[in-house]
């Protein structure tokens, strides 16, 4: 943050009480968003990342039979010596997938591999490292326990148990668990559809030549990226010129097509805006000024049944408000359980400048110092148009509203991007 910004912000303190707190804004947004009701049936691989819309009841025991946890010998516990040694005859072998058909008798054992079904009458496995074997017999010493190194049938999952409840997100481990039960298809919530557009007469496409005062539109690209990470069906409506008819048409189209509409630009106090006027006319939208930085202005509401977010126009503000407000709402609509994300307290190695009044999401680089400790430093220039502050960052440094910055060495709260992003 530069000196003049601090000077400027100081004069704003008188207005701080009009600003909506981040916590209050988050709460109001979550009250507006409700989980989707549409569902679809998918093969389990296609369901990776989705949220279950049904309870999954196991049709089988996992493992289906008592089996060996080790490569070794299956024995009867009654043959285990209390002291001294006991010699057992090897009468067969059992492999995973090729069970032994031999019924074990006293004084006998069966060579058994990890995962192989326990032979009839066997109840205990002795790891191969723990016996002396000579090819036809083994010598067992005292100290073993009945049932050791045996995985019981149903130890992981019992038949008819609910193994995954509705609302569970399907991550790689859930995928494996479903496969292990033989479940090939599941019912999940349908994908969320989100339409987005940018507004601003100064915006040009990436391939266009810039005239005076013009910039390339970057917001549609970062929004596309953030939505793609959430496995959302996104509809890019392009750049909307600030003309009454264009704006009206875009907002109507977008809200008819999507569950959620996101715009960037056109919600701050300005003069050249048909956006605000049109939103007020077509929907029930609140225009907030939030006690946060970057990203003071935010418009939230409904256009018919579609949820609407009007984000600020500055590229960093777009990303910060998306991650803090829009993403949790979208995830909630997708059926995910609410998670606050990982927040760490680590020392900052650079001084962080801030004026009291607004909560700040400064962009930081989380790294390990020479002692292996996690520390954070600022990415430098923190103005809300400076997109490098975001692309170089791997975390937000969250400085609460009342904070007046932090000096080097002070512990600050950090929200790592991996996990968030």
């Amino acid at each position, binding site marked *: 943050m530069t000196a003049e910004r601090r000077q400027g912000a100081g004069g704003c303190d008188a207005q701080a009480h009009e600003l909506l707190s981040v916590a209050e804004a988050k709460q109001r947004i979550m009250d507006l968003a409700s989980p989707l009701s549409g569902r679809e049936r998918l093969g389990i691989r296609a369901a990776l990342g989705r949220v279950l819309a049904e309870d999954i009841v196991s049709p089988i025991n996992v493992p289906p039979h008592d089996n060996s946890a080790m490569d070794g010998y299956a024995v009867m516990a009654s043959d285990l010596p209390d002291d001294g040694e006991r010699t057992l005859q090897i009468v067969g072998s059992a492999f995973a*997938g090729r069970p032994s058909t031999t019924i074990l008798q006293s004084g006998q054992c069966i060579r058994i591999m990890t995962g192989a079904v326990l032979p009839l009458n066997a109840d205990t496995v002795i790891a191969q490292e723990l016996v002396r074997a000579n090819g036809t017999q083994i010598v067992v010493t005292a100290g073993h326990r009945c049932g050791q190194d045996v995985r019981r049938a149903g130890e992981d999952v019992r038949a008819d148990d609910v193994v995954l409840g509705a609302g569970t997100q399907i991550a790689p481990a859930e995928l494996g668990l479903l496969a292990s039960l033989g479940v090939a298809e599941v019912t999940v919530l349908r994908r969320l559809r989100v339409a987005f557009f940018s507004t601003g007469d100064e915006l040009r496409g990436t*391939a266009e030549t810039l005239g005076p005062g013009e910039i390339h539109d970057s917001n549609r690209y970062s929004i596309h990226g953030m939505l793609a990470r959430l496995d959302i069906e996104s509809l890019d409506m392009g750049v909307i010129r600030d003309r009454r008819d264009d704006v009206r048409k875009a907002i109507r189209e977008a809200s008819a097509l999507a569950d959620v509409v996101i715009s960037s630009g056109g919600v701050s106090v300005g003069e050249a805006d048909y956006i605000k006027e049109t939103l007020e006319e077509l929907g029930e939208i609140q225009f907030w000024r939030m006690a946060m930085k970057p990203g003071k202005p935010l418009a939230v509401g409904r256009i018919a049944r579609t949820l609407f977010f009007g984000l600020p126009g500055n590229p960093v503000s777009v990303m910060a408000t998306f991650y803090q407000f829009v993403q949790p709402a979208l995830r909630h609509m997708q059926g995910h359980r609410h998670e606050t994300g990982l927040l760490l307290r680590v020392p900052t190695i650079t001084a962080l400048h801030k004026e009291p009044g607004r909560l700040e999401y400064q962009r930081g680089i989380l790294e390990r110092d020479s002692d292996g400790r996690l520390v954070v430093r600022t990415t430098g220039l923190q103005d809300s148009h400076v997109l490098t502050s975001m692309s170089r960052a791997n975390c937000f440094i969250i400085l609460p509203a009342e904070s007046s910055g932090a000096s080097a060495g002070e512990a600050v709260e950090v929200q790592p991007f991996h996990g968030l992003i």
Partner: protein
Amino acid sequence: MSIDKIQNSADCFEREPDMMSVRSARAEIRALVEPVTESVTVALRDALGRVLAESVRSPIDVPTHTNSAMDGFAVRRADLDGTPPPTLRQIGAAFAGHPYAGEIQAGQCVRIMTGAAIPRGADTVVMQEHTEAHGDDITFSEVPRHGANVRPAGEDIARGQIAMTPGTVITPAALGLLASLGRSELRVWRPLRVAFFSTGDELRPLGSVLSRGQIFDSNRYTVYGMLKRLGVEIFDLGLVADEPQALRTILRQAASIADVIISTGGVSVGEADFVRSVLAEVGRVNFWKIAMKPGRPLAFGNVGDARFFGLPGNPVAVMVTFYQFVQPVLRYMRGEHEHAPELMLRARCLTPLRKKTGRTEYVRALLAEESGDWTVRRTGPQGSGILNSMVRANCFIVLADQQGNVAAGEWVDVQPLAGLI
């Protein structure tokens, strides 16, 4: 995990001094792999999640023009030095995209919006909140320093400067930044190609009817899920019969299409394992016993020109060895020059843990925040066949080689899965 099992394992570690530490296995693997060297050109949006293969030089200043950081009035700072409160005459307005065409003379000011180019003659912006309008006469209640609220052209990135270097992962922020530089296409490293298959006579594909001793093959689903998140090209070669010719054929096929081959099952010491001889025939593969739990056996080497990972067959061991050994290597091979530091937290362990020294244990656990402190508890039975321990977990408790038993309340290292996955 049962207590007797821990004791047994501990015994066998004492008897097996040829155990390799997690750290040296990682180092040996890393020494044998190289990043991909071919690159491809893709449309900007398609680059999301890929790895940049070029240095991106900015063709423009960012911001392009010296512009306003605030909504307010563009002034000549010297004009505000007169008797307070100074008053200037508004001669026009400047919007983002619609610059003011004229030049400001002494005694004049221009209404200016955030992002609008600073009109010629002006050098300072006074924020709206510090002004009062009486028709075209604007009175200034506060006088900022010279240059206040003005963002110089090139402040973020100067024309010709390198904005991004090879090895950068294209995140949503990077996408936005590249769009703002007017890039429509990018050179990225070609995707890494990863083939995988599972082995084991007891395994049956989903949809089959299980007979005694058989289980469904779940590993190909977890491996698929874990690979999917890494943005690699995936080849699922299916389930391979426990038979030398089938294995030979699949390995040769995999080596001809993939950079990396991952197999699950068939690498532990056992009689059913002809895997070693086939691998010795088609490649050079080391079979290690890693001092870790779960996941003791690990094979690594070359098959043809491809790198080969032989993971254990137990579902949890597959996931743990994938995250600890395979994932970092795949990220390195796909060209990532750095990634965020491994997040390792300290948390208070609420469950006592049995642990023998001499190996690293990855205990599946639940990390939570309780009154400002991180706490962690393990997720029930820890057998390496028990996928439920992974499903319920949001972290690994990492117990290092030298660590012994952990009493309830002791501090432990925790690796959150959110960061890992």
